[in-house]
């Protein structure tokens, strides 16, 4: 596990300040259908390598972040704010 996480708001912070939620998956639309929702809720790529996860900076800015981490080496390659990443995706 990486010791220091580069929080976009607080800078480089120790991992103990964060809570890991799990895979940062794109939430399907409410009308997407049972298969899409099943995939979203239950199925995981579970890769050995790069993985995007939701982390909460519980003891810091309390923002939800998207951390890109290697599941074998634990190296963190990027860390960005989840809300602004989502806004960018939706063209806001």
């Amino acid at each position, binding site marked *: *596990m990486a010791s220091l996480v580069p929080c976009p708001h607080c800078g480089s912070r120790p*991992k103990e300040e964060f809570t*890991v939620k799990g*895979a940062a998956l794109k939430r399907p639309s409410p009308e997407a259908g049972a298969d899409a929702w099943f995939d979203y*809720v239950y199925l*995981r790529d*579970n890769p050995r390598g790069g993985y995007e996860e939701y982390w909460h900076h519980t003891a810091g800015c309390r923002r939800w972040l998207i951390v890109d981490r290697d*599941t*074998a080496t*634990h190296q963190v390659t990027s860390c960005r704010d989840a809300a602004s990443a989502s806004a960018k995706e939706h063209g806001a």
Partner: protein
Amino acid sequence: MRYSALSLLWNGLRGNRDWKPAWRQPQPKPHYDVIIVGGGGHGLATAYYLAKEFGIANIAVLEKNYIGSGNVGRNTTIIRSNYLLPGNNPFYELSMKLWEGLERDFNFNAMVSQRGVLNLYHSDAQRDANMRRGNAMRLHGVDAELLDTDEVRRMVPFLDFDNARFPIKGGLLQRRGGTVRHDAVAWGYARGADSRDVDIIQGCEVTGIRRENGRVTGVETSRGFIGCGKLALAAAGNSSQVARMADLKLPLESHVLQAFVSEGLKPFIDGVITFGAGHFYVSQSDKGGLVFGGDIDGYNSYAQRGNLATVEHVAEAGKAMIPALSRLRVLRSWGGIMDMSMDGSPIIDRTLIDNLYLNAGWCYGGFKATPASGFCFAHLIARNAPHETATAFRLDRFQRGYLIDEKGQGAQPNLH
């Protein structure tokens, strides 16, 4: 060679020069009827029961490392069958019954030691939950006793009964639970399978699954292509990786679980004790070391090592339960990769590919299940139908809404 007191004496008198290796180191054949991917406890048990109970010849077990190098040699060796839900309980009780006859069955000393598993409770609500679980166990014919504070105090007087935050109010005891020497389980099954002509091929990593017309025809490995009639996956923490070779996406996440062993002590803890207010479980090995563990670290990991934050958490839980642990020195800690399923229960099922079988999702409860897992998986492979105790462990249960959520945590594996 059959092991017995006489063979021990005879070989001892002759200077122990004539012992033969317990299993062969065969070269892979071009084709097997059944190939099992993963030479851990479950894979080896599957091969053993396929050959012994279901009359299948021509089986291979492929292991990328050496047998016993994964979770079967990394767990805290606890066996128990104290499950609540009807989908789980008969299966784990079958496992307990197989443990009870295992050493005689495969002629190997696995040090099965039924010293009791005691789950503590700390509040009225927890007592009620334990009573419910105990009653469910007894309805399934499994032994369970609900103890009050005094009865627990007589058994294990050194617990912190009057802890201000988590006073110990009693415990649920399964006397038939206990510990087993985990390496010997891998070795015993390997030896038993090998003597029935199963090829155990170590240092052979599966790198691809070859399919034709919707059926598996064999596997690409680091030692070349090997053909098979049926392919069975028992790859534990690497299940998602292997399944991806057949374009299967599984309801699994891989997480690291740590375990610890302390310096050797004089006899101190007789059975297995688990903390009800946190996740902590401890037993004492015959060498004297305390063997203990706690929660998974809580993040996806393929690294077989964990993090210091969890070490601290486990130590704190241990000290809250047994204050005398405070000056104990920890000798070793290590990690294993758990195949955490989305409801905390395993999968033993066929897949959408006709001759591909899956055994996965053991979370951190796979060791106690080893004999039944092997037996039921062998049943499934040989007969194409699930064993009667494993009918609930279906791969499609997540889609159909038949979850077996023993802890009621939902599809969040880092909480299981």
